[in-house]
């Protein structure tokens, strides 16, 4: 199967450089629908679904290869090999920030810059490190996923058609958004929330923007500060936003911070 089909890769936009968007835990590339279009005039933009998410090829989700984020990082490098020529600007959200970071360590020459939206190298508290969660919290998340995926074909679906944000959505999007395979989603949740890549952070030399929300349960400020301290080349930008998805709830502020960073970095 081609890389394109395997990861449902979509290429749009035109520009001398390529910008690659990788979605976070829980959803799929649809998450970028508010931010990615901003860059289509200046960049070739690539969005894709992580293995096991969205419309990726379910058969390509390999519980051994994807037992750690390294497998996803290798996926990313394969996508770059297939679709990008020069070094790219990588934009990752949530877990994909670490997938991108691992890829920059493996193949630094493939990256011009990395934008980390809501990053965290380790979610679980560990001694003096505050990741924000305990092991019990993660177990509770898995429980909640279990409960809500029980009848996953109907739960989480929009009950009321014609909701205000609805009309511009295509029907197939409404049907498919965030409908991930329950078993894979739980496996991926475990891989994501039990990962600890603090040791890899100092080895990523590609200039990084840490896009931090002022109030983010999943990536608290302390984690943003930690990354800023340990990344060799990084800029920290804090956006006034409650939640974990500034690219959805605050796309304008997000792109402003990214633009400023790119202006500095890509000179």
């Amino acid at each position, binding site marked *: 199967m081609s890389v394109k089909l395997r990861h449902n890769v979509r290429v749009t936009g035109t520009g001398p450089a390529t910008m690659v968007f990788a979605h*976070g*835990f*829980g*959803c799929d590339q*649809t*998450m970028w*629908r508010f931010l990615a279009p901003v860059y289509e005039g200046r960049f070739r933009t690539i969005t894709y679904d992580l293995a096991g998410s969205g419309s990726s090829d379910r058969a390509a989700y390999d519980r051994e290869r994807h037992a750690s984020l390294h497998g996803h990082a290798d996926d990313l490098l394969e996508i770059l090999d297939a679709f990008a020529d020069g070094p790219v600007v990588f934009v990752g959200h*949530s877990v994909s920030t670490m997938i991108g970071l691992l890829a920059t360590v493996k193949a630094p020459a493939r990256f011009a810059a990395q934008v980390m939206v809501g990053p965290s190298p380790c979610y679980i508290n560990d001694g003096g490190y505050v990741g924000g*969660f*305990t092991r019990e*919290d*993660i*177990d*509770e*998340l*898995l*429980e*909640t*996923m*279990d*409960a*809500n995926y*029980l*009848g996953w074909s*109907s*739960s*989480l*679906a*929009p*009950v*009321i058609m014609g*909701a*205000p*944000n*609805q009309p511009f*959505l295509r029907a197939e*999007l*409404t049907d498919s*958004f*965030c409908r991930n395979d329950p078993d894979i989603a739980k496996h991926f949740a475990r891989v994501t*929330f039990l990962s600890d890549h603090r040791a890899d952070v100092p080895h990523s030399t590609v200039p990084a923007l840490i896009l931090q929300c002022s109030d983010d*349960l*999943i990536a608290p400020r302390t984690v943003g500060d930690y990354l800023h301290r340990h990344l060799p080349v990084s800029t920290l930008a804090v956006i006034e936003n*409650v*939640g*974990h*998805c500034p690219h*959805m*709830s605050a796309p304008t502020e997000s792109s402003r911070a990214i633009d400023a960073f790119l202006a500095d970095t890509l000179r």
Partner: protein
Amino acid sequence: MAGALPDSRILFERAACALLATDANGLILHANGLACSWLGYDLEELAGKLRMPDLLPVGARVFHHTHCLPILQVQGSVAEIQVDLRNRRQERLPMLINIVRHQVDGQVVDQWALFKASDRRAYEHELRTARKAAEAALDARREAEHQLQALNAQLSAADRRKDEFLATLSHELRNPLAPMRSALDVLKLKFGRGAEERLLGAFDRQLRHLTRLVDDLMEISRITQGRMQLRRAPVDLSALVHGAAHDLAATIEAAGHTLRLQLAPAPVMVDGDATRLAQVVINLLTNAVKYTPQGGTIDLVLACEPGLAEIRVRDTGIGIPADALATVFEMFSQLEPALERARGGLGIGLALVRGIVELHGGSIRADSAGPGRGSEFTVRLPLAEGAHCAPSGMAADAGAAAAGVRILVVDDNHDAAHMLVMALQLFGCDTAVAHTADMALEVADTFRPEVALLDIGLPDMNGYELARRLRLLPGGVAMTLIAATGWGQDKDRQRAFDAGFDHHLTKPIDLDQLRTLLPQATPG
């Protein structure tokens, strides 16, 4: 109007579910009576002060952030979210939640509807527990299968290494055998008639034995490694089985066994490698000889079934225990008692036989009534394309025609005489054998043969002379005399007829032709 709706505030306040309105960040703007009551707060304590996500336990909050909010953002609503809410007393309330997003005066307002779901949750919890147990069992089975596969892979790797080792070993062992054979042949030429004859004989026999063992080993290696090539051609199994019996006649005789040969009356054609198939029959016969105590009986049968040729080798030997029948064709499998009796061998003969038979698209099976009760090996091979069995009547007729006829076979070549006798016995004839003319006259006197088949080149007197003397015996005039010579020219025939022969046959003797010459059995 009688059915007019109450005021919307009353509808909101007294709704049968908890209703709340929040801003995009989940900050509570309004809550109805049930919401306040379930959560344990006054409206003043909630509105503008508490955020809904803060009432969720941490795990549920992560789910809300990573799943519900993006969907709400993109689709405008989510439904049937199952989470716990914590009330003021930090008690967990299992809830089913729907959220729909609206724009009110340019501001985002999320409307939440909450339903208690304790019973449903308890029930689903049970379902989930059951599913987990089932999944755990499945995982355990997968793991077990995985281990089994790994183990299998290890075993096949070990097996492959063993095959490679055997191939190398047999090849390396074989190399020194050829010069040893040549040297021995030279020694035999030089000293064969001297005092060392017995020593050289022993050397010769043991070297042959060793060579055969190594050859077997090499061939089984070829088969297990899929490297044995068959040279296939149409083969008549009748001739082949006959030849194999002939080759082993001396061995069988030395062991004091009786070989009963029963062949299909007409050629039985298969598409095969004659050398390999002969090896099959010889191996089976050798085994029968080896595993049958002295003085046993060995039956060698070739039958033609529709589409199939069937070779059966049956003995009266030590037999095979029922539990060993399944493994008898595996390499290195030998019955323990056989080992104790020191019959030797590597235990690859039958593995080789099966390998060859299977390469021919055939099958082999072993049967035995148990230890001490003999064994029977049955080889089935597909007939060559277009080949058919001869009508079964022929065999019966031919056999019946000659049944009971008394025949004296005279030949100084013991093997040739023996083979002829075996063939004639197959026809149902009564046979006697003599290797010299003197002996023939002596036997004929008491045996009173109806037919005498005479070799012409006898050591003490030629066949023509013997024929004349036989005619002089009582009943000699009626005797059918058949000459067997290596020459088939007219003058040779004439000479035979002049000497009183009734018929003349050219060697090697065509059994079918011989059969036509035999008279009908004399009644009584």
